[in-house]
């Protein structure tokens, strides 16, 4: 115990060893930053700031400006293949992405989520239908990442609020005409889930935009009959890759699970983008890079719409779906900060 360093080191042995979890510190750091950023935005009408985030509104007199706040969503997203993942619990908060993957050792499918706030991957206690093993099953994450809609093994359509942990079973018992069995559904915005009615109700309306061709559900309500095309004109919705197959630029479709055909055609000189797993607005496609990570691809530079043909093929884990608004706004924020 000769030197001052030694004495200090000896004293430091009495130091505490505890502290709040890293996830809590991270969340508190983000929240504190948001508060500071909001104050700055209100004072200077600054739009965009360091970091990423989902846009909400703060009022400054008569004007409102986007507050650069919210969950951290950064690309690329690297799927945690083969890693042991923690249980995220009933209410992990908004997710940036969710997908289904075969459980280790076979058996039921496992829902894996990416928590937007922390960037943590984990499993979700969601009992999904075995029909998800087939190509035509659907589930959907709302654009803000807060709600997930999925089919249970009892063929109930359930919406889970990921902030509160509450689940709502959509009451189709008294709904007329009947909801399409195993029909596609998707979120047209953060709170409106839409899907088709059964084709036999009015076969012509399904493709012609009849007044009663679909249903819409909002939290706290029962599903209501709606004319999908007339109510949501131009919205790319409904499909196994909602927002992909129906996207106006995505003109050339190949059968799912056929990426090789796509790649082959592209090699032959066709202007195709293979393995699209999501779209964000008219200019950004989510796809995979060579290492299997999800990346955003800027396709706005393709001036000729005829050359924007994109082929959506199966890729990555089963049934991946993204909080596209959340990711898109993060990309905007990154642009603003750079």
């Amino acid at each position, binding site marked *: 115990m000769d030197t001052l360093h030694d*004495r200090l080191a000896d004293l430091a042995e*009495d130091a505490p*060893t505890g502290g709040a979890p890293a996830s809590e510190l991270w969340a*508190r*750091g983000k929240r504190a930053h948001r508060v500071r950023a909001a104050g700055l935005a209100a004072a200077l009408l600054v739009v965009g700031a360091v970091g990423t985030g989902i846009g909400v509104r703060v009022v400054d007199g008569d004007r409102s400006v986007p507050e650069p706040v919210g969950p951290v969503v950064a690309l690329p997203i690297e799927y945690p293949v083969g890693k042991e993942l923690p249980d995220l619990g009933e209410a992990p908060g908004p997710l940036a992405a969710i997908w289904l993957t075969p459980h280790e050792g076979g058996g039921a499918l496992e829902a894996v989520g990416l928590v937007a706030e922390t960037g943590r991957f984990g499993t979700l206690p969601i009992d999904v239908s075995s029909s998800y093993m087939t190509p035509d099953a659907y589930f959907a994450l709302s654009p803000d990442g807060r709600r997930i809609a999925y089919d249970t093994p009892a063929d109930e359509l359930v919406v889970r609020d990921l902030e509160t942990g509450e689940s709502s079973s959509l009451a189709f018992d008294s709904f007329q005409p009947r909801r399409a069995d195993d029909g596609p559904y998707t979120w047209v915005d953060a709170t409106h889930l839409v899907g088709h009615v059964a084709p036999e109700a009015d076969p012509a309306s399904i493709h012609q935009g009849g007044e009663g061709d679909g249903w819409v559900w909002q939290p706290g309500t029962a599903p209501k009959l709606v004319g999908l095309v007339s109510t949501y004109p131009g919205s790319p919705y409904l499909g196994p890759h909602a927002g992909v197959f129906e996207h106006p630029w995505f003109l050339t479709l190949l059968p799912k699970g056929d990426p090789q055909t796509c790649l082959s055609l592209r090699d032959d000189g066709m202007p195709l983008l293979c393995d699209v797993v999501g779209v964000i607005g008219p200019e950004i496609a989510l796809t995979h890079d060579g290492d299997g990570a999800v990346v955003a691809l800027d396709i706005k530079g393709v001036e000729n719409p005829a050359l924007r043909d994109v082929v959506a093929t199966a890729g990555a884990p089963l049934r991946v779906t993204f909080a596209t608004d959340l990711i898109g706004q993060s990309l905007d924020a990154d642009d603003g900060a750079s």
Partner: protein
Amino acid sequence: MTGYVDFEEFVVARRAALLRTAYLLTGNHHDAEDLVQSALIKVVPKWARISDRPEPYVRQVLARESVNRWRGRRWREVATDVVPEAMHHDSTDRIALLEDLRRLSPRQRAVLVLRYFDDLTEADTAAALGISVGTVKSYARDALARLRKRAVG
């Protein structure tokens, strides 16, 4: 999506070391934990820019926060829950050193800890605290003199 993952790895790997420094800066378990926690929260918004080499920046925040917090305020009394559980053969020396440290000003203490515990150079200590190298020398000289005086006395 590596920001949080990197942060978590850093916290897991380096929290204990940060707590040791913080304990010397504060002399108190609760304050040390609070200081480290506060520093880690403060660096989160900067993480994307510092993630390649976060420790120097984290320690800079830690040191400056300690000075700002305790400036103009006496170092807290050494909490009674700290020393007894650490009692062993040289506990007397620890208690004496704690008492010596608490008689220093926050900046003197910070300079002493950074220079003689974290082994920073005078230039790095100056950068961490946002003061000049000359001031670091002055604080270190005065702090050491006070410690020697106490030892002799």
